[in-house]
């Protein structure tokens, strides 16, 4: 068992446990708090997968912005005690859990079968010093910035428009009198 294996096992355990805990806690405050170890585990996985920039963005946007936004709204709407006792009552929770387990099983089978031999070996042989087409180290800001501002320029600009629209919409929706 190499170092990467150990880190992967640790991250997988942390992510799985905290994801299940976030979904199954009755108090939504605990759900939000359990998302923090989940995001930290995902960040470590991204570092392990040679995506340092994606990992940094994940930690800043998810661990910083989105988590605080969730906590803020949770405190703002001031849940009454009886709503904190929210139990599973949509589908019966056992049925939903069974459906989710079946989905996980199907995804696991397909993700084992759907990986080609070249992808397997390429994944294994990718080392830390892989240089990308842009000449920079793979996953670095430089290697991502080139394609982002060349072939992905239109989606990039569209995302910025989308975020402006989303912010304006959020302000408008949560204003007291429209």
């Amino acid at each position, binding site marked *: 068992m190499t170092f990467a*294996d150990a880190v992967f096992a640790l991250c997988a355990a942390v992510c799985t446990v905290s994801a299940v805990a976030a979904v199954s806690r009755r108090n939504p405050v605990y759900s939000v708090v359990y998302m923090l170890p989940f*995001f930290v585990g*995902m960040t470590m996985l991204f570092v392990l997968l040679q995506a340092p920039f994606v990992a940094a963005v994940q930690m800043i946007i998810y661990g910083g912005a989105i988590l605080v936004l969730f906590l803020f709204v949770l405190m703002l709407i001031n849940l009454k005690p009886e709503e904190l006792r*929210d139990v599973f009552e949509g589908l019966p929770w056992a049925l939903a859990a069974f459906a989710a387990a079946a*989905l996980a099983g199907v*995804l696991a089978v397909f993700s084992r079968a759907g990986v080609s031999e070249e992808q*397997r070996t*390429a994944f294994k042989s990718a080392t830390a010093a892989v240089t990308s087409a842009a000449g920079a180290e793979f996953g670095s800001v430089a290697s991502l910035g080139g394609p982002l501002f060349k072939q992905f320029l239109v989606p990039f600009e569209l995302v910025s428009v989308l975020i402006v629209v989303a912010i304006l919409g959020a302000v408008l929706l949560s204003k007291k009198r429209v």
Partner: protein
Amino acid sequence: MFSLSNCLILAGIIFATGAWGVLARRNVLVMLISVELMLNAVNLVFVSFARAHTNMAPQTLQPQAGESGQLCALFVIAIAAAEAAVGLAIVIALFRNRQTVDTREMRTLQQ
């Protein structure tokens, strides 16, 4: 242990957990959190395949096969942030009108 298959299996488990949350929970906030879980699982798949395609670029004749995957993950994160902002604004508007975030109480169209 640390292989492409295992990364995808982990993503599948996280996605299924998120789907479980959306199906079983009736608190809108927890449902939104579950959606974030599913988006994170998809990001993990993107980044895993990006890493697998790093060394395959000469074979697939796509010069930036690996970078494309990571950029897709970045776009997913950006759109997830916008989605969370709008979703939470809707939750606030809903709570202001109905004094609840329980989907069992939101059946005015049915009644």
